[in-house]
């Protein structure tokens, strides 16, 4: 007896023939990302465990030995960079999760969006599933690991409040992930995929007040700082781990990140729908 016996084909008792709800469909699409993650999770050990240790030892402690704590708000240098590192890891992970895997979703070497298109999933479900993985699952798992690793360096002055740094990192992910999805969905060929690392991820990492106070940047670069989601996230995270008042009221930082996330979601939804309705 196989699943293909005529009786089984006629009755199909276990198969749901109705359209899934938005939440069900996103969960189904998310499961693909989870299945893929099971194959590559060991690679994330580097990003989540070794990378923060290396940063802490080389920059936090090594470079920190030469830095006067008065220049970084009275904190030790390690305390100053720790919250930014947690948020930076979130941005780095997006580079892995939302560039090649999105572009590949439409390509013949990946094609998972094209495969999902033949199922009850709608383009917006594929987007939501991918975002749930990249902007929720990944920051809340990997950034938590980073935060725990950093705790061993004694870089938190606020004890359990430090956990909110992970939420700030997740907000940074949520604000950037849909825009990366939009961008990777708009590309015609893979030759330009690496541009996002050179012209977005790298500058964002450098100009967001992770390694030095953003106020030290020249005035003409300040708009770049204000625009950077990582700066807003780092300000929030630093308030959580070191009890430093953020540059703007916390709600303003949160509102900015949330507005970017919502606008990005609409843009990404428009793009994936256009791409998959041939």
């Amino acid at each position: 007896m196989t699943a293909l016996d005529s009786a089984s084909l006629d009755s199909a008792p276990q198969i749901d023939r109705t359209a899934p709800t938005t939440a069900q469909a996103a969960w189904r699409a998310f499961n693909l990302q989870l299945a893929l993650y099971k194959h590559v999770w060991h690679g994330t050990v580097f990003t989540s465990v070794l990378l923060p240790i290396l940063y802490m030892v080389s920059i936090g402690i090594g470079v920190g030995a030469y830095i006067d704590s008065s220049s970084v708000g009275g904190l030790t240098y390690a305390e100053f960079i720790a919250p930014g590192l947690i948020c930076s890891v979130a941005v780095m992970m997006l580079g892995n999760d939302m560039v090649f895997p999105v572009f590949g979703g439409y390509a013949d070497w990946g094609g998972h969006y094209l495969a999902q298109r033949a199922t009850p999933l709608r383009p917006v479900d594929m987007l939501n599933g991918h975002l749930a993985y990249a902007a929720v699952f990944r920051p809340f798992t990997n950034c938590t690991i980073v935060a725990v690793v950093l705790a061993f360096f004694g870089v938190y002055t606020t004890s359990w409040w430090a956990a909110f740094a992970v939420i700030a990192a997740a907000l940074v992910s949520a604000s950037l992930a849909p825009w990366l999805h939009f961008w990777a969905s708009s590309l015609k060929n893979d030759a330009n995929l690496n541009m996002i690392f050179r012209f977005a991820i790298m500058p964002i990492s450098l100009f967001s007040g992770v390694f030095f106070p953003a106020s030290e940047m020249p005035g003409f670069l300040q708009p770049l700082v204000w625009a950077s989601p990582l700066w807003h996230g780092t300000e929030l995270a630093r308030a959580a781990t070191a009890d430093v008042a953020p540059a703007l009221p916390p709600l303003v930082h949160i509102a900015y990140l949330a507005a970017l996330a919502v606008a990005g979601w609409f843009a990404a939804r428009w793009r994936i729908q256009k791409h998959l309705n041939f």
Partner: protein
Amino acid sequence: MPNDNEILVRAGDLRKSYGEHEAVRGVDFEIRRGEAFGFLGANGAGKSTTMRMIGCVSQPTGGELEVFGRDPHTQGAEIRARLGVVPQDNTLDGMLTVFENLVVYAGYFGIKKKVAKAKAAELLEFVQLSSRAKDQVNELSGGMQRRLAIARSLINEPELVILDEPTTGLDPQARHLVWERLFQLKQRGVSILLTTHYMDEAEQLCDRLVVMDEGRIIASGSPRELIDTHVTKEVVELRFGPAHTTELAELALTLNGIGAQIEALPDKILVYTNDADDTNAALEARDIRPTSTLARRATLEDVFLRLTGRALVEDEA
């Protein structure tokens, strides 16, 4: 109980345009439950576009389309829940194993993991890939990937399986294995819709088919009906050494009156006839001596040539 005469797909004056280009120019057809229905045509004829509209991944720009009595525009997800699709380029996930590809895909249909695993194992047995279950898809040959794509399309026990050129690019052995599996599905009452530009594939698998050319249906019926209606019983193929295109066209003029119709191709002349022996005798009587002569029964390829005046392979560049 399913009704055998139930119409699964109904299209009326169905159209699809991409800007100025009209890919499908008003086609009408019905596909009934339990039948194997084929779209035959050269590349660019509009058959894949039509399939995509039936598969609810492409919106028609004109006419009417109903799948399972539903509107693809508003009920696409419900329709796709009842379809199985084997796309031209497989779209398997190369990073996942063979088994995972099936289980993850089953999840898109809301099939519980335990059920999905059992079905995946049974389907791998059906397509003879059980021994490769733990291998990554990238390690499979083209024929194996095709069989896996077929297995994947069956995971939701579809009422209609759509196959877009199921054996294109496969070696003859792999083609025959795919045909055998599709034939088994057909015998089990699964409705099949396929596009192909292989005439032998259409003849073997399809109960009924339509021939498409430049976005229109130019003929429809069973393979036998199409042959009986549009061409003679037999065809005599004549080759004249190195002679080709222009020379053959001139030679074809000297054959006037022999057989029912003469068709000059780039490498040979076809004489459509109801009696190959009579035709050969007539050639001898006119002292026309080809370097080789082949008498065979007429096929769907001849139907296509007769209807469009060109070979399918011409458009494959």
